């Protein structure tokens, strides 16, 4: 009844039991990495994000030390030398007051980075407190706090910022205040969402049943687990704050002369581009764009790296 094919070609001695060989049973072994190590490993693979990071590090170094390499100061005017094209003396040329564009560009970098980072940090603190309380308390408190957020979210941010700047008068501090008054809302929403998601995890219930107090639960358990999307949000806040500062400066609501920000420099360059003084516009424009680009690709990369859903 049983048919066999070609069994003649198989040597008889192969027909003996091998017994169960336990090391033959494959078990899936993966090196278990911590959340942050794993995220860093994946971020490192993203070449674009890493080049963004490197650019930002170099930019920061130049913003701090760049002016040292230049014999000119940021406010030093030299009228006979006005609107000179880039040369060995003035690497990025000069402006209509004969000020050195190279030096002013690094001062602009200081301002842009400072505004961006401060806005992100302040957003972070307000957002984490507001969103943390809202998400953790839940119930009526949450509903009320979220209703407020929903209304604030509907405000046209840049208009409110313009209004605040008009009222408070242009300065570095007021820019940061105006940006954060409107900016924290997005962060608060994200923090709340994260907290809600994680609040019901078992380990939180566990520490509650051990009698841990609320602030301790927030600090020890909730915060480390909510950081991923929050860091991404912070990274993406920086370029939008840099954009907003440049935008305000362009409207005449930014840093006042003789100090410089990239937006102010671009604005000042506007009347002279028709006369071919391209460097006046080119350098601030390219630095604003590249900085925003670097932050955007870094933020995207971190989003991919930190998203636990993608962790196979």
């Amino acid at each position, binding site marked *: 009844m049983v048919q066999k094919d070609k069994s003649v070609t198989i040597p008889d001695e192969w027909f003996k039991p*091998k017994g169960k060989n336990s090391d033959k*049973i494959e078990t899936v072994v993966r090196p278990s990495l911590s959340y942050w190590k794993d995220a860093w490993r994946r971020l490192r693979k993203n070449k674009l994000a890493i080049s963004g990071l490197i650019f930002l590090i170099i930019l920061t170094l130049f913003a701090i030390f760049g002016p040292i390499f230049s014999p000119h100061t940021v406010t030093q005017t030299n009228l006979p030398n006005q609107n000179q094209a880039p040369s060995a003396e003035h690497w990025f040329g000069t402006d209509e007051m004969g000020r050195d564009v190279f030096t002013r560009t690094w001062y602009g970098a200081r301002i842009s980075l400072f505004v961006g980072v401060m806005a992100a940090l302040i957003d972070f603190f307000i957002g984490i407190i507001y969103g943390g309380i809202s998400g953790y308390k839940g119930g009526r408190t949450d509903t009320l706090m979220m209703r407020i957020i929903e209304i604030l979210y509907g405000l046209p941010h840049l208009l409110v910022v313009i209004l605040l700047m008009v009222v408070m008068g242009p300065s570095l501090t007021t820019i940061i205040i105006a940006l954060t008054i409107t900016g924290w809302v997005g962060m608060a929403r994200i923090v709340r969402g994260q907290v809600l998601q994680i609040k019901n995890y078992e380990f939180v219930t566990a520490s509650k049943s051990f009698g841990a107090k609320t602030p301790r639960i927030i600090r020890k358990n909730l915060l480390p687990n909510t950081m991923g999307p929050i860091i991404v949000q912070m990274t993406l806040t920086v370029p939008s704050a840099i954009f907003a500062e440049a935008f305000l400066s362009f409207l005449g609501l930014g840093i006042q002369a003789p100090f410089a920000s990239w937006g102010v420099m671009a604005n000042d360059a506007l009347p002279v581009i028709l006369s071919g003084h391209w460097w006046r516009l080119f350098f601030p424009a390219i630095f604003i764009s590249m900085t925003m680009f670097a932050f955007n690709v870094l933020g995207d990369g971190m989003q991919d790296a930190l998203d636990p859903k993608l962790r196979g």
Partner: protein
Amino acid sequence: MNEHQFDNANALVCNRNEDLDRQKGKNRKTVSTEKVLTVEELHVSFKTFGGEVQALRGVSFELYKGETLAIVGESGCGKSVTANTIMGLIPQPPGRIKNGKVLFKGKDLTKLSKAGLRKIQGVDISMIFQDPMTALNPTLQIGEQLTEGYRTHHKVSKANAREKAIEMLELVGIPNPEERLKQYPHQFSGGMRQRIVIAIALICEPELLIADEPTTALDVTIQAQILELFNEIQEKTGVSIILITHDLGVVAKIADRIAVMYAGKVIEIGEKREIFYTPQHPYTKGLLNSVPRLDLKEEELQPIEGTPPDLFAPPVGCPFTARCPFAMDVCDRVYPETTHLTKNHAVNCWLQDERAKLVFT
């Protein structure tokens, strides 16, 4: 220990009798010998970042008119890839049909152009998906989702298509079909949605229905209803069904024949009773032993230890060797030829060799 496993399988078979016989009495089908579909030596691979996954490594089987063939196996064994290949739904790239044929009505489906495939998809061959909650487009009315395939293939008026849709909804047991046509998927329960998915699959009166885990996502009570519906529909329309599942309970209820897949190969195939009563492959026995049953004591439940092999670099010999309690030296080295035990029952296992029978006595 080996003895024990055989005994266990036998005990299980006896307990299963009741279930199988009850079904048999209810709808004894006369399965014709006319072939609807022939799958020959199908090899399908997928390119991934980690390398090439050989999902199917030579799958062959035939499907007769009016029968239900169940393809069973663990997840990742290639059963869904088989279904998608027949259906022409393998995305290429990353997928690639490297070898083999899918013969349907004299045509090799793997050689058809996309336009040629579209003339068969939904008309001659239809598919039912696992999760009815996601298989329906949430933003389109049920009526449109039902009729669009019919209207694409048959060029009929809206009114005619609507009539047909109502008829189909009645067939699958949805009350008030006329009102239901205007509703959206979220207004239906899971069981109802699966009925709609079935109606969509059947609207062009296909000859072959491929059901990929059609009851896995449903509640147990709903599962029974849907399986009953399959039996009814097959009686009424004579459609051939390929049922992809890992649930042997489902298989016991509606399958005529069973193909057991492991690591991209069919390792045993036979009529339902043959597979349940006289399983030959140790893997098939293992599968049967790993099903929890009320009438067995808990310690008699035998999970199969270990995991299937890595399909990036599949073994030369029998892929089950590493987990097989009867593994011999030969198993690692050469893949066993097919042994035909009866007209329909075939198995690929070295235990069928006379010399093996001397070893395990």
